């Protein structure tokens, strides 16, 4: 048996699992959305014409975008400090980032429920120091969803960027300094351009992750802040509108794919090492 054939045989079970239980069901979801009356895309035009449904789509985009931008802004400087920390401290910081990452999304969202709730810790604190007389309703707002999302994705961003920043040899920043570059210009002219591919990877992970999240918007946004994930669940499991749910699902896949493709194009164009 040729080695090539052997290799393919070894790969068959995994390929089959993905093809049969992921490929086919997702294709069937795609097929479900094909309109039966008139235009095959009628379900999509219905979606895009509905003000409510579009609100959900735009809200999800907005939340995902803000989450991504804030995660980059918070994650990048933090990752820089982690990457530059001496051995032992670095391990501790990495542990501190990995721990929340490996703690479940329900637990992490729950923490914000405790903090932001009507009788939550923040309200209690605000009333105690007299900043407010009545408890504020902070839950089920776009803000509460966004803060929990940021909380969810900052560790991922940090860990992605630490890897990237550690990959920039110290010699390069030393070389920039020896050539007269101040720390600020070294950052701007050397570190940042070299970190761009990693930033893009991190941004894609955060954007697609927050765009398709379910538990966090469910717990912190509820019905009032419906997002694509919760909307899909509601259509599928509450109103049993499978065509509508499939349409939402396909839109999510398309947005995810488009983001990944666009960003990997961008990454390739901005790849600093390409010559």
């Amino acid at each position, binding site marked *: 048996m040729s080695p090539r054939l052997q290799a393919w045989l070894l790969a068959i079970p995994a390929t089959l699992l993905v093809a049969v239980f992921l490929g086919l069901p997702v294709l069937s979801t795609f097929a479900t959305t094909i309109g039966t009356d008139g235009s095959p895309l009628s379900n999509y035009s219905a979606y895009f014409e509905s003000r409510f449904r579009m609100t959900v789509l735009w809200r999800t985009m907005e939340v995902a975008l803000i989450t991504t931008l804030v995660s980059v802004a918070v994650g990048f400087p933090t990752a820089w400090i982690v990457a530059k920390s001496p051995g032992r401290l670095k391990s501790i910081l990495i542990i501190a980032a990995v721990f929340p990452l490996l703690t479940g999304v329900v637990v992490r969202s729950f923490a914000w429920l405790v903090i932001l709730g009507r009788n939550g810790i923040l309200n209690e604190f605000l009333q105690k120091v007299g900043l407010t007389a009545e408890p504020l309703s902070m839950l089920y707002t776009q803000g509460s969803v966004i803060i929990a999302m940021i909380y969810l994705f900052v560790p991922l961003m940090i860990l992605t960027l630490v890897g990237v920043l550690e990959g920039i040899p110290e010699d390069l920043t*030393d*070389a920039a300094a*020896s*050539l*007269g*570059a101040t720390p600020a*210009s070294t950052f701007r*002219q050397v570190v940042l351009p*070299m970190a761009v591919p990693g930033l893009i990877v991190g941004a894609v992970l955060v954007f697609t992750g927050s765009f398709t999240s379910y538990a966090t918007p469910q717990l912190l946004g509820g019905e009032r802040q419906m997002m694509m994930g919760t909307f899909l669940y509601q259509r599928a499991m509450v109103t049993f509108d499978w065509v509508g749910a499939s349409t939402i699902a396909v839109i999510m896949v398309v947005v995810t794919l488009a983001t990944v493709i666009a960003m990997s194009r961008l990454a390739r164009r901005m790849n600093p*090492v390409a010559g």
Partner: protein
Amino acid sequence: MTVSLDLSDVTAHYGNTKVLEDLSLHVAEGELVSLLGASGCGKTTTLRLVAGFLEPTSGRIKLGETDLTRLPAHSRDIGLVFQTYALFPHLSVRDNVAFGLKQRGEGRAARQRKADEMIERVGLAGFADRFQANLSGGQRQRVALARALVIEPRLLMFDEPLSNLDAKLRVDMRVEIRRLQQINGTTALYVTHDQEEAFSISDRVAIMNAGRIMQLDTPEVLYSRPANLFVADFVGFENVIPMRAVAEAGDAVRAEIEGGGMIDLPKQHYTVPAQEFVLASRPEGLLVDTADRTDGLPAKLGLRTYLGRAYQYQCDTTAGPVKANGPLGTPREEGEIVTLIPQPEQCCLLPREAK
């Protein structure tokens, strides 16, 4: 403007480990001084201190009249060539070379022109738009050189710049480095572990060990007159034969070889540094001759190897095993009893040191 570099009593630590101890070094205007030693001897630490990537625990570093000790790295005006070249992978050759000019606020046109000129001078005309990924090791080395030279720094520093190149290219590049350094007569500090490289291009070489300079002198002096056993061993005086001066014998000093035997050392060639001393020599500094001579070390021959220009013998003497050379015409057999005659120009006498 050429300036001198002065390190005075510089001590440095990594954590609690002392890596440099009271190191003082003067590099004169336009001079190229090499720091030579095995890894961990403190040579790279010294260079990084001068570059400003590390701070000394105590001591001062001056470049001309400027005190560098607490100056940030980017204000030191030093052209540094890294062992890894440290080319910016996201910049073209031209932008790499122009990087330092940009930091100095030079206009776009001026820095491109200067960069292109320098690229041409290092022999890379036509490569200006390439990226590091598309350059060979030797070409990267030249870009690194051009990048350090184009800013016309007051000091040039080289950190093992040739260690990633193959042997032939190394020889070509070191000539090139020396040539370029001499064009502007820039003061230079060169770090290497390769003795031949250091000796071939330096005005003076500092041989370092355990955070100290063991000897700082011209290559010629280091090669023929090492000042201590460490340097002697470093430059190839492999045989170390302990002796004790016992008497005057006419024009010579008679010495007793450790373990037995006498040798007469002519005063015109040798100065005995102390009563207890050692004779250090390269293998070619001990010539195998017949057993009847009295002005050498008695020895029994061991394994013979062929070196092309001579035979080399592993020998047993009363003072221990040594290596000696013998002429090609008369190959000798294992077990023969011979005399090893020290050749004054390949031998030196050094005071004994506590091990």
